């Protein structure tokens, strides 16, 4: 019981600590559709979803992804 209490307290204290943010090295790209004037966002050449956007919108999303550390700026 005592042991359990110590483990619980240790867990509570350690969970409060914020880990160091490691900057991602993943690469974000915006690629044009072969036929249409719409663009897809890729991280490390893999599409993030099946959606296509206008070029400006795609670049905005790319920026948001970078801000959220999903890829390099």
């Amino acid at each position, binding site marked *: 019981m005592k042991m359990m209490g110590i483990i619980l307290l240790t867990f509570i204290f350690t969970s409060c600590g914020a880990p160091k943010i490691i900057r991602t090295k993943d690469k974000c790209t915006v690629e044009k559709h072969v*036929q249409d004037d719409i663009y897809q966002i890729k991280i490390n050449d893999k599409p993030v979803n099946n959606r296509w956007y206008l070029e400006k919108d795609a670049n905005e999303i790319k920026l948001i992804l970078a801000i959220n550390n999903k890829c390099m700026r």
Partner: protein
Amino acid sequence: MSRKIIVLFLFSLSLYAQVIGEVSLLRGSAFLVDDKGEQVSELKQEDSVSVLDTVSVSDKSFVKLKMKDGSILMFPGNSLMKLEKYQIVDGKRDSVVNLIKGKIRAQIQNFENEQGFVVKTKMSSIGVRGTEFLVSSYAVAEKSVTDTVLLTGKVNAEVLGATAVDLAPGQALNSTEYIASGKVRFISKESLSKLIVNSEAFLPNIQLPNGSFIDLDSEIKNIKTDPTKTSVKETVKKAATPKSTATTATTSSTSTTATTTASSAATTKALAAPSAPGGGGSGSLISSASTGTGGTGAASAPMPASGGLSVPSVPELSKATAVKSAVKKSIQYITATAWDIKDALVHRTKRKRVNECFYWYFDISSDGLTHERFREEKDCDEFEFDDFELK
């Protein structure tokens, strides 16, 4: 007793097959068809048409129907329409023409009730008020599309999935474009005159099979002028003679339309001559000059209430900026591949202000062979909620 039964039978038969007009001109061939589209009988000139008749016009043919109320309906080849209703009771008309496919050019006699004549298509319903107009019904990527252009008078177009809009002479509406952007086009003064003068001309399809939009004015320019009719110049001259009542309408309309295109301003000038109200006949000065049906007085052709138009107000720009912006827009229009992308590109800034953005996805079409593109609307600030899951 038996005589009474026969009379009653004949009377009921006459009610069923109520003659509502006749074929006043026929070039090529046209048929009456049943509900399954199978030919019932071939139509000939001066044949009568009745309520519930479905008329199919063969390729490269032309049919002109003169209705009992004096209205004229014209159909080019590959048109199919059903005369669903055509009643005139106590001077009030209640008529519905269902344009299943193809085109119609209608010169409608004015009646007491404003919208007693309706042209129905899969995508829209056009209520008519003593006027002349053109409608096309066709399909783009298996989706129904309806184009309407008003030559004279006034029509109220109800498009499925959008708010109804009153059209003014010279305004052209494509149902797809209207649903997507609320945009109503203007044709130029010359195009309007040409369509009026060529009394057997029809409206070219505004949208191509690949979904892109044509330059309507250039297409209309290619329509051959009928030399037997009034010259374009003459018509324009007549159209430009303002009546006292028309001037006010024109002035108010100028402020509404000036923000759209350069051609709209020119069109507004051409519209300056809706004839003065009177008589109860039909057609404006323009139509009476061109169609030869005038002289019976005319219904005025007032401009629509500004509320009916979906023309956004844009702040005044300097000449150079305006030209630069127009060129940029044109390039975007040309380089984009399809109407839905063009529309999103051109109206991006405006839509972004109200947090409206689009995305596209591809799905296998109903035939299971090709990928079809679909457009979806989303909030612009919704990016973080997209499914950003690495696959």
